[in-house]
Structures are given as C-alpha cells and as structure tokens.
C-alpha cells in the first residue's frame, strides 16, 4: 500500500455540447518520501490528476487515498504549487510565505521566524518586504514553494512550477528543490513536460498518454546524485522516455509534447 493511492480514477469534464474524458481507469501508487515525476503530452490530464489529488476536483469514478484516508475535498495533507504565479499580490514576501501558518493560527512572531527561515533556505533573504510585482518569475516561484513548504503538508504537488523560467534558473531551482526534498523527507509529485527535468529530479518517472489520460509506462531512475545531465546513463534514459512519448504521439495523432 503506497502513501498516495489513485485507484481506477476517471474524470469527465462536461462541456456545452460534449463530454470530455480527461482521465480514465488511472492507477497510481506513490511511496512515502518518494519524488515522483509525471511527464506526458500537452492535454493528457497531468494537471487534472494533480487537482484531483489535491482535492480541488472530485473524480467521476474511482477513489484517491492519502495515508489510507479517502481524499474528499481539500485537506491538511496536501498542498499544490501552481504553474501560474500564484503569490498574493497584495501581500509582501514574508506575509505570503507565512499565509498557511496564519491560517493555522500561529502567533505572528513565531510564524515570521519560521517564514524567514524558509526565505533564507530559498536564498531570498533581504526580500521579505518586497511585493510579488517586484520579483522576477524565478523568485516568485521560489517564494511560492517556500509558502507551500511552510504549510508543511505530507504531500507536496508541483505543477510545472519552473515551466516559464529560463534554463539556468530552472537548473538552479531544481537543485534547490532536491536539497529540500532530501532534508524534509517530503512526498513529492512533480508534473513537467521537460524530460530532462524529470530525470534530474525523480526517483521514478511516469509517462502519461492522452485521450483519455492514463499512465502508459514507468521508468525508474537509479542514477547517483548529483546527476550529470551529460552522462551516458542520463542520456540513455532521456532517449528511452522520448521514444515512449513519441510512440504515444504517433498513436494519438497529436503533434506536440
């Protein structure tokens, strides 16, 4: 029994004229403390899957369990970092990071201390009083991750958090995220369309197919850390995953990864 169990989940979206089966008969098991990456073509339902696990949406059929408890709406056990910049623009960095602690009713001085620690962890000390509009995209996503970490849920979901960033920034944030994961022993589910990113981060990469969305293949990543993106093993995994994705695309007649 894994820590996160997705069992025979189906998700139908009802449009005006037709219904779209976003996910069908999807099974997924994530172990405690695992760093799972999910890759797949655009529109394969990666984001829908995360929203279901987060409790933002309800499955049309099947069930989701976290720590043996049925997911029924939003809970303390999970939080999600969105692909879009989601910091509250009317709050400064410190008050954004402390938001979850404020909701828990933690005292002001205590939650500020805690938030400052996380801001430091993200290498953004000195920006406590800055507002989101004063920060670059990379900084905003780091603060969004700090905000999610402050909430200290058992499962952390990340939906292409580095998708909009340039390569150098992305690589640096990937390294930071790995450090945090190793230190905090979190269970992470990370969605990306970047194969390289998935191999660099994951203990296991799941490849999803579209129409309808479900898990097609699983690739274990047993490379030592720090992982060298130019090593033969890394590149072999990259080619392997790319071939699986290309097969999916040819079968479904899609045209973009």
């Amino acid at each position: 029994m894994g820590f996160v169990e997705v069992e025979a989940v189906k998700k139908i979206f009802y449009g005006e004229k037709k219904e779209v089966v976003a996910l069908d008969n999807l099974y997924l098991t994530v172990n405690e403390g695992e760093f799972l990456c999910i890759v797949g073509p655009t529109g394969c339902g990666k984001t829908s899957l995360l929203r279901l696990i987060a409790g933002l949406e309800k499955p049309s059929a099947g069930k989701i369990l976290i720590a043996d408890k049925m997911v029924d709406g939003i809970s303390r056990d999970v939080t999600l970092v969105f692909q879009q910049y989601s910091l509250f623009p009317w709050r400064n960095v410190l008050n954004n990071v402390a938001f979850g602690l404020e909701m828990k009713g933690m005292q002001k001085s205590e939650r500020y201390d805690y938030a400052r620690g996380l801001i430091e962890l993200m290498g953004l000390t000195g920006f406590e009083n800055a507002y989101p509009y004063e920060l670059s995209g990379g900084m905003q996503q780091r603060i969004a991750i700090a905000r999610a970490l402050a909430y200290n849920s058992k499962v952390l979901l990340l939906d292409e958090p580095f998708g909009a960033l340039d390569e150098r920034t992305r690589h640096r944030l990937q390294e930071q995220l790995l450090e945090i994961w190793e230190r905090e022993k979190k269970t992470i589910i990370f969605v990306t369309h970047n194969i390289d990113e998935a191999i660099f981060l994951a203990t296991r990469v799941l490849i999803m197919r579209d129409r309808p969305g479900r898990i097609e293949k699983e690739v274990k990543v047993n490379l030592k850390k720090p992982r060298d993106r130019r090593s033969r093993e890394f590149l072999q995994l990259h080619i392997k995953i790319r071939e699986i994705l290309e097969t999916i695309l040819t079968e479904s007649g899609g045209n973009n990864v």
Partner: protein
Amino acid sequence: MKTVLLGLIIPILILIVWEYFAVKVDNTSLLPRVEAVFDRLAHPFTNLLDTGSFVHHILVSATRVLLGFLLAVIIGVPLGLLVGRILLFHRLFSPIIEILRPLCPIAWIPFAMAIFKTYTIADIFGLHYTTNIFGQIQLGMLFVIFYGGFFPIFLNTVHGVKSVKSLYIESALLLGANQRDIFKKIILPSSAPAILTGLRVGLGISWMVIIAAEMLPGSDAGIGYLIMFSYELAEMDILIASMILIGAVGAVLSYGVKVIADRTGRWQARER
C-alpha cells in the same frame, strides 16, 4: 515642474480671454472682470447677500454630501460584496439594479422633494431647539446624494469581487483557509482597489448631484443655493466664484480618495 507649467497654460489662456471679453462687454451683471471674482474668493468669510459666507455654504454642502455618501458606502459596499459573491443575491438584485441604474439621480430630485418635503435631520432627531448644521441637512437631498453615490460604489464592488482570480482562492484553500479567511484575506484585499475606484467616482457624482439639488426651491443654504440666489440678484462675480469653488472642492475630494486608493492599490498598478 515642467508638467505643472504645461498644465497652467490653458487656465491662463481662459483667464485672458475672459478678461478681454469682460472689458469689452463692460457690464458686471453680465460678465464681471477676473479681479472682481478673485476678490470675492480672497474673502471667503465675508457674509454674502445676507445668506452667509462661502465657507458657510461650502460646509453645508460638504456635510450633506459626506452624510449621503457615507450612507451610500454603508449600503453599497456590503451589498456589492454579497451580490458579487453569492449567486442568490446576484439573481435577486440584478434586474432592479439594471432598471434603476440608467435613471439619472437628478431625475429623482423632484420626487424626493415631494416625498420628504423639507424635513431635515434635525426634525427627525428633535434637535430643533438648537440652530445647528443638522437643520440644513434635508432628507430629500440625502436621498439624492445617496442615490448618486450608490451605483458607482455598488457596481465597482461587484466588479472587484467578481474579478478575484480563482487561482488566489484555490491557493488560499490549499493553505488551510476556510470560507471566512477567504472572504477576509483574499476577497476583500483583492477587490479593495476596485472598491476605492467606486468610492472616488461615487463621491464625485454625489458632489455634482448636491449642487443640482440645492438649486431647486426649498433650500436656503449650500453652494448650489448660493449660485441660484446670486443669479437672481445678477451678482455674477459671486456666481462665478461659487463655480470655481465647486470645481476646487470636487478636485480636492477626488484627490483625497485617490491618495488612499493609490496606497492600497499599489500592488495592482504594477501587476501584469
């Protein structure tokens, strides 16, 4: 500095054209000289036409406006929050709002006067034995100011609440917020800039409406009343000075709300 100077060019041109025609017409009951008007403005505490000073009339008008405006805020903002957030309220209020909205507040003035007659706040609270400003706050005027201020406040609040990004609400829910937190910590701050825009527009309209209301019979104070009275006595210098004051007070009111709005909405101006 340069922008200030540029902004002064047109007003100075107007003054020159005005002075030119005033000298040419040479009839103070038609078009007084610039100096005559500014001389009036330079003595704001002088009793005019036995009705009171500029300061007195402005204070009467401003008190009417602020009370009526306050009423519009107290009702407009909470109602806007409810209508923007709760579908039942939206369905309940939308049709009547759409019917009443195009109805100009000035069209209500005769109606309000017929209904409320010359009743004042002093009448209601039994403050008759003292002569104070409340004897000058007619209910009909309050109603019309309220009506003028209400719609911009209400509609901007609804708009502000409806434009709160679901991304922020979902983020907050995923960080442990309950519905009360969502309202207090997300909906309110997120729609604050729109609400303040509504307050600014609403205050501007209230100020315009009061002038119109005071021009009608039944009033014996206020800057609008002074305009009509000086017109009847052909005191054009007082009339024009009053108009300048109305513009100036309106600009100050608008600027005051803008300063508050800019501070609250600092984040929104820069957000892309």
